[in-house]
């Protein structure tokens, strides 16, 4: 990754906007939404830094392959880690046939992701467990907000001509503004992949900067669509440009590309986040999305984050899974932790 001359470490730093109430005691359920501040104002585009970015694919794959076996969490620790994964989830529905009914079901699940019975057996019933956000298309923002009222769970909307990002540029900006004004607190935008493939960093930077402005106070999550950027170096450079332009989160995929989130791609993006933090002191979040459907995989992602970015990144303000079927597998594993028996999908309420 880039060679950074300046380092800004402060080990005691608490992430800005850190929301300790994501899992909190029952008595103090907050009624108001937690304000989400932009954490990354961005910096000037630095061509020199972009040019220096290196990413050696085989070494990166070696790292992710071995990391899986370098760390292990068992018993109570596994339970805690799985519960953590639940709180880091952007529960998502992005389908052409979404209806308000469907979104209401999802929102209900978001507020009660794991059944009380299991939480009681795990002796963690005193917490309100909820997911990181609910992620929908623009038209579903209103039903989502409605269903999530009083929960403090933010609504995220995909935007800018998701998933291809090839609609007229003005309309893409208008789309963001529209979603923000409807109450979406997070905007998941897609970039123009062609700017990366032609290495037109200036254009990419300007595009994302305008997205950022359009977001106003909403959190900007920039989807790189890594499956279409193909090389690790492209991904590393695009990550850095997105952060320079002000991305609060960088996200791997729309879920619609042929290859979505993978551990090696995530590692490249995570290391870019680390470099950017060392350079600016700004913490940018990371969201792998698409293809993560197993509890075990989610633990591997958490380990990767813990090892490469540190435990302070394991909060919903700085890490999210974009997933739809992951939660069910985690519920099954949690039930196994609670009962010692392997569980079945149908035993857990659908979202």
């Amino acid at each position, binding site marked *: *990754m880039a*060679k*950074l*001359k300046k*380092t800004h470490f402060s080990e005691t730093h608490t992430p800005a906007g850190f929301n300790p109430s994501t*899992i909190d005691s029952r008595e103090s359920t907050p009624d108001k939404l937690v304000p989400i501040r932009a954490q990354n104002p961005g910096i000037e585009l630095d061509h020199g830094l972009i040019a220096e970015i*290196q*990413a*050696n*694919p*085989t*070494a*990166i*794959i*070696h*790292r992710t392959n*071995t990391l899986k*076996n*370098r*760390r*292990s*969490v*068992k*018993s*109570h*620790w596994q*339970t*805690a*880690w799985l*519960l*953590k994964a639940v709180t880091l989830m952007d529960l998502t529905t992005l389908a052409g046939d979404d209806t308000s009914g469907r979104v209401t079901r999802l929102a209900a699940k978001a507020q009660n992701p794991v059944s009380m019975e299991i939480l009681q057996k*795990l*002796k*963690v019933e*005193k*917490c309100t467990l909820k997911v990181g956000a609910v992620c929908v298309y623009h038209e579903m923002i209103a039903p989502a907000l409605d269903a999530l009222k009083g929960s403090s769970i933010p609504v995220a909307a995909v935007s800018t001509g998701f998933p291809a990002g090839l609609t007229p540029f003005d309309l893409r900006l208008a789309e963001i503004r529209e979603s923000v004004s409807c109450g979406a607190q997070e905007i998941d935008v897609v970039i123009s992949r062609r700017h990366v493939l032609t290495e037109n960093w200036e254009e990419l930077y300007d595009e994302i900067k305008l997205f950022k402005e359009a977001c106003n106070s909403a959190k900007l999550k920039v989807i790189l669509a890594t499956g279409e950027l193909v*090389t*690790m*170096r492209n991904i590393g450079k695009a990550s850095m440009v997105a952060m320079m332009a002000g991305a609060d989160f960088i996200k791997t995929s729309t879920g619609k590309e042929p290859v979505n989130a993978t551990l090696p791609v995530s590692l490249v993006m995570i*290391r870019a986040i*680390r470099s950017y933090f060392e350079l600016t002191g700004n913490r940018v979040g990371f969201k792998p999305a698409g293809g993560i459907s197993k509890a075990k995989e989610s633990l591997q992602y*958490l380990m990767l984050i*813990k*090892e490469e970015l540190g*435990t302070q990144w*394991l909060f919903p303000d700085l890490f999210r899974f974009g997933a739809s079927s992951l939660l069910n597998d985690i519920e099954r594993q949690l039930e196994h932790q609670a009962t010692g028996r392997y569980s079945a999908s149908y035993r857990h309420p659908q979202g």
Partner: protein
Amino acid sequence: MNVMNIFESMDYGPSPESRTEADQWLENKGKKFGHYIAGEYRQSTKPKYFTTYNPATGEELAQIAFGTKGDVDKAVNAAVKAQKKWYKIGGYQRAKYLYAIARSIQKHARFLAVLETLDNGKPIRETRDLDIPLVARHFYFHAGMAQLGDTELPDRIPHGVCGQIIPWNFPLLMLAWKVAPAIALGNTVVLKPSEHTPLSALFFAEILSQVNLPAGVVNIVTGDGITGEHIVKHTDIHKIAFTGSTSVGKRIRHLTAEDNKSLTLELGGKSPFIVCSDADLDSAVEGIVDAIWLNQGEVCCAGSRLLVQESIADTFLAKVRKRMNDLRVGSPLDKSTDIGSIISRKQRNHISEMVALGKEEKGTVYQPQLPLPHNGFFYPPTLVTGLTPSSVLMREEIFGPVLVSMTFRTHREAISLANNSKYGLAASVWSENINMALEIAHELQCGVVWINSTNTFDAAAGFGGYKESGFGREGGWEGIDYYTKPKPPKLPVQAKAKSKSELVYKKEIPESQIDQTPKLYIGGRKVRPDGGYSLNVLNPLGEIVDTVGKGNRKDIRNAVEAAKSASSWKHASAYNRSQVLYFLAENLAMREKEFARRIELQTMCDSGVALHEVRTSIETLFYFASWADKFEGKIHQVAAKKTVMALNEPLGIVGVVCPNQYSLWGFVVMMASLVSMGNRCVVIPSETGPLSSTDFSQILDTSDVPAGVVNLITGNHDDLVKTVVEHDDIDAIWFAGCSTQNAMVNKMSVGNLKRIWLLENNLNCWYNQKSSYYEFLKHSVEIKNIWIPFGE
């Protein structure tokens, strides 16, 4: 532990691997082990035991029999008894046994991993993911070698009984590296595991019994260095393979000097880890973790010497320090442990002393504040920066989790600093520029180079060192060479030497003869001997044929200096080397009568015999000219997206001692083979027929051989050989002189562990059977394996 607290802290928590089955096995064995000889555990008649400990806790694991000379004798007898039959059953039958062993290793994989971790103290992650899978891989690979040996290597036969002495750092893996190729090719084995880590070898013995390996094929004798010495000295053993320290390796070289056992030595290292400014630095940091914090740094090929480009040094070292904070030192049986226990208190003290010395040498020592277990012999990961090439820490092996570092300015300087070491085992090169990475890889003097990776192994790739890191290769086709030897050729009927009365006086001086002064030939120039003395060249009747210069130590020194200056020869294209050899042949052919006449005068042989020798020499030059651009390396099949190039590299400067027999051809065959592969030679011509060589200097002069590539020092072998063999700038010795000097040559080479090839009395065979010159080529090169992962 409260789940909610963990939820806040997101700690890993304990994740212990169960040791129940390993403990049960030890219990069943009564925690007491004899040797494994002729297919069964045996106790000595008056058994003496030592204890093997778990270094992570200090607990006693078992009592192990101490191998006496009597035990070694029994084991060797069993191996001798088994060998002929084991070889005769053929490759396919042996392959089936090796295959069965591989399968059994896999069946007991976790058991072996736990046992190894208990005995050695290394993390379970490593034994489970690295050691044991590689053990199985080696037996699979060599099952294949057993199968193919009969058809693909019909000219090679096993050594017989191999004595194998292995270290404690990769106990079962080193056993596999040694045992698998040995038995695959029809050898039998007496193996001694380290006294620190005998348990996995003793369980391996059970596997051998389970697969019904014929009794005596593998025998395991436990004990320490004393037991090892009985093996090394045993006269019924014809091959010694040793992995361990350079000092013990040198002692073994010494002990085997007299009986000239075949030797494979895999010794110490101070392997450079080179990080260029254009590297993927975050990946290089992980490379360092794998290089020096694998197995607590107790790895012969550990990337222990960090060379980092000055322009990025601060950034990179900051990343390394930060990474060190996240390493986990602790119980080796915990699945989340990165660094386990050092093998022994003694070794940990040694490491502490070395780090203290680093402080004295003004190095800056960084050790993260990590919690260390109270029991056992744990040592924190350590980085020492700000050292220079003269620091002891930069030069000597530490064999612990201690990385020492230094900066370089350009990649050329990196190469020179990397090679500034007595060792030459491995290296790791990090750069995203393929031109630079490959140039560095080619220029490094070491047996293994990992580009943008480190400490990766596979049975299909060769492993072994240059310089004082030892010789011989393990793994791949090249490893097989060291567990076989050429079939002894049928000795041709020797022409009966003529009695003195049969010799005909032929000396005749042509009228036009002008006096000639054969001189030494150094750096492309004919020079007078430093001492200013000459030696008479006598024919068998004792008559003076001519005189040659009487070379001395200083002439050898000058010749080596000249050879050093000719280092560009190793970069000459194969085509170029080939052309030069053809040209030598052409020019020798023009003067064949003259050369034949010299042979006749020196040896008083028949003119036909002499002319035949000249013509054979010309053909030999053609032969090696042909090979110059055809003796190729290999691409090993290791893993997807990894290319391993096994390159044949020249040895460097080779001291060549010519035989008295074949005064011309003996010189030509050795010189031509070495020169064809890019070596430079310091030649000590035949004592009785030196004129054939000195005359040849004119051929060298007229054939575009660069100055210094071939140097000729005539003189008494007794005076010269010792100087050549001891010279630290000479990399190898080819000795075809009087066999009474063989042991001396072996012994004197210990200083820098030269590669020694004693041609003994075999020249006759080669002279008469041209097909077997292959052996010459193999001895002319050192094999370097370059690992090149790829993919974007």
